[in-house]
């Protein structure tokens, strides 16, 4: 396939059947609409392009900044589209909770403005939310902004009315599926696809999925938050159900590990919600010859959510225990560690000139430290020790940390690794200062 522009590659994503051995459904064929295969990586590529395509020539002429309230995929797609046209892109958000997404956007050249947290001392007369305020600023004529307005723009829905919806019908040989399941973010894809499917067959059942209220799933709104979305119309959905972050991650892991689909948590949530709903339907079809189809949307890819996953499921990232780590110290190791108090340490330094290793961060070391000490921050020291002793076993070493706790553990570890004379500064640098011993700044 040859294209003149990467934007021509948006859309026409595959519809892939999920193996019945995975779904356990006997009467329903479940298909995944793989929006993660769009060129910028998500379903939002369609809306982003549809919301900008016609407005870009004039915006380029004026030198506008493209701006959107987005914490993820829409911002990503818009940043790339803006960049292709030589325009700056700015995202204003209060929902960017995934650090990798933020870093990626900065890499793409986006400017990010984050909204502040809730106020602690409430002003009950201030009912103007920051979003409304920003909206007003952006919508002013000649503001210098091209505001794509994904939560309200009909162009968002249109992208799916002309693209996603017809593609599903085409790939199902001209029939609409019996069930359509989608997570609700901007409501653009679910609204647009539902309209197309219902036009084909009014009996299509549309299931909208929202995030459980106490939970956070990137790209999905909670039952309260969907009401803030201009495109959201409860009438679109036959039923609205909630999924928890745990369920979304479980669904995602099944798609990744069993189906070869590198789905993100939103796709996982849609898969979980689809299966939960369809299993009941499937059971009701027990003895009938009726065969049904269902489609759910896989919005984006897993790679941007590693931080999110690490926080919620640290066990997924379990590394085999590394050699020479603090965690492997036994009480006997710790008991064998040698500590010296400030007076003894000063005497030892004067007489034998041990290597003094300051384990604090470089910022703190640069400000004040023991004269002649070297700085190896604890995180780096950790790494060095995995590979072995970074100095000879006979070289006397005095380890120093803020209060003498961490240094004692490292002294124990060095001793266990065969070092002959590693000692910890009892009381640490704080004890050293409080004893009136000198600290220098170079």
């Amino acid at each position, binding site marked *: 396939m040859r294209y003149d522009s990467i934007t021509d590659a948006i859309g026409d994503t595959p519809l892939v059947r999920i193996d019945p051995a995975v779904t356990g459904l006997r009467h329903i064929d479940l298909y995944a609409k793989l929006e993660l295969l769009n060129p910028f990586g998500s379903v939002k590529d369609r809306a982003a392009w549809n919301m900008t395509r016609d407005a870009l020539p004039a915006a380029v002429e004026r030198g506008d900044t493209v701006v959107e309230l987005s914490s993820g995929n829409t911002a990503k797609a818009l940043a790339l589209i803006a960049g292709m046209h030589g325009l700056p892109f700015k995202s204003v958000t209060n929902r960017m909770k995934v650090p990798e997404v933020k870093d990626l956007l900065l890499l793409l050249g986006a400017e990010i403005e984050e909204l502040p947290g809730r*106020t602690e001392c409430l002003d009950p007369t201030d009912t103007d939310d*920051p979003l409304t305020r920003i909206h007003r600023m952006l919508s002013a004529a000649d503001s210098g902004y091209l505001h794509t307005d994904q939560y309200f723009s009909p162009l968002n829905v249109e992208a799916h009315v002309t693209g996603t919806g017809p593609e599903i019908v085409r790939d199902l040989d001209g029939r609409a599926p019996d069930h359509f399941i989608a997570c609700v973010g901007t409501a653009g894809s679910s609204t647009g696809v539902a309209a197309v499917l219902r036009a084909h067959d009014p009996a299509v059942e549309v299931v909208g999925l929202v995030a459980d209220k106490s939970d956070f799933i990137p790209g999905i709104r909670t039952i309260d938050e969907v009401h803030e979305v201009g495109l959201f119309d409860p009438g679109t959905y036959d039923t609205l159900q909630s999924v928890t972050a745990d369920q979304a991650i479980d669904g995602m892991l099944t798609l990744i590990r069993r189906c070869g689909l590198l789905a993100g948590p939103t796709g996982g949530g849609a898969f979980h919600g689809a299966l939960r709903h369809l299993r009941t339907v499937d059971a009701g079809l027990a003895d009938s010859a009726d065969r049904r189809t269902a489609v759910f949307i896989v919005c984006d890819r897993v790679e941007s959510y590693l931080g999110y996953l690490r926080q919620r499921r640290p066990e997924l990232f379990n590394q085999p225990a590394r050699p020479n780590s603090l965690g492997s110290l036994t009480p006997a190791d710790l008991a064998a560690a040698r500590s010296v108090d400030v007076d003894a340490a000063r005497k030892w330094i004067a007489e034998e000139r041990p290597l003094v290793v300051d384990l604090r961060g470089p*910022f703190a070391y640069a400000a004040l430290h023991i004269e002649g000490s070297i700085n190896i921050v604890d995180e780096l020291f950790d790494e060095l020790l995995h590979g072995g002793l970074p100095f000879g076993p006979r070289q006397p070493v005095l380890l120093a940390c803020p209060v003498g706790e961490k240094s004692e553990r490292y002294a124990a570890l060095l001793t266990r690794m065969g070092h002959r004379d590693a000692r910890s500064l009892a009381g640490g640098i704080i004890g050293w200062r409080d004893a009136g011993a000198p600290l220098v700044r170079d």
Partner: protein
Amino acid sequence: MRPLPLFLEPRLEPRLRSLLAAGDFLHPLVDALGSPLNVLLPEQLADNLARFRAVYRKHHLSGPIHYAHKANRSRAIVRRLAATEAGLDVASLAELQHALGAGCTPERIIATGPKNREFLWLAARTGVTVSLDSRAELDELAELVRKHTLPRVRIMPRLSGFEAPGARVLSRPSRFGTAAAGLDDLLDAVERHRDAVDLTGLAYHLDTTGIPEKAVALEGCIRAMNACHRRGLRPRTIDIGGGFGVNYLAHAAQWERYTTELTNAVLGNRPPLTWHGHGYGLRGEHGTLRGALTLYPAHRATAAETYLDALLSTRAPSLGRPLATLLLENLYDLAVEPGRALVDQCGATLARVLEVRPTPDGDVLLRLGMNARDVGLEEHGVLMDPVLLPRPGAPSTPPGEPVGAYLLGNLCLESDLITRRKVFLPRLPAPGDLLAFANTAGYLMDFTAGRAIQQPAARKVAAFRQDGAWHWRLDEQYWPVDGTGTAEPQGERQA
């Protein structure tokens, strides 16, 4: 079908739960001292303080914990505080006088907020630390010290407007503090005034619940402290203010269900949950929700000392190390100024039910012997149900159905509702019963109380357990010798 009652049960820890179960003790108190009545639990303060101190210990940090006096005017609370290791943050001349009189020695006091010359003079004269709001305040203080030949004053300038790396955070501009970008000018002035002031630390306070914003500010202070040391100044303490929050509600699920239903009510999808359909900042426009919820997040999984712990465990945005580690390894002390969080569970506000009036459209109106100023639930956006304390000895009513009711105040004002939310009670109260608003010691008790139309202002009493019974003192009669077995009999009643 009657809709399910949307309870918002207050969170009650054992001491406050035990107090509110003692109807035999509380009813005679209100009979004698009038409605409304504020009851304080000074002993709880020591427990809360210990929890904050445990977070310090966990991170190996040192430094003072200051109670923000403005959260409550109670004498008992300040006197009990004087008997602990904590310090006090005072924000007015009278608060400073009160703190000194209650036994807080000057080295434990920090003067904050907008200050007049009299406040500055007494602070300088007695040797309390002054948290400086601006350059102008520094000049005024230095001039005052020289003119009246006062001792050198310990100062902690307050900074604001910190810049984050990466994404820009649109923090609300503050009326307090000196912009961090103007630090050099400020330090020039500090050096010029060296004869009059002694820089002992730096401070910030952000009005936000957002930990990332506070992380930016705390890291900014660490960098600013470093800049001070490069100039040869020797500040040692970073004061990160308060705003750690309180969890008011017992059940997260109730809060979530309630706020969802409030959204539905605003959009017209269900009958109103509030007086005249008040939306608490939300409004519906063509089926779309607009505005912002102006309510205190009444259920908070992370609040008070666990919030401090979470902040200290957060990695600094540019230096990368956890904030507690940075404070520790740079040899800085940490000062905090919790108000609300330090008096969490430290008291309740009681009011007599005067009238029970069903309305034609099925609501119940309860008129109370108090007004909206007496308990700042509306003012502070805190939603929770009161606890019903039936009158002892009243003819026992059968345990009725749960009931929703609006609470009317004692002012002749249409708007005088204790809360515009319809509260839910386990059964219909009778005149003479008491309603207890739990956990009001932080800002909800007397921050706004007045004497409109000469209605009585609530009196305060301090309650404590001794020898298996509840005892009480008028607030001004309480000293920390009470509750330790050496109490004087004066003013004492036994439950």
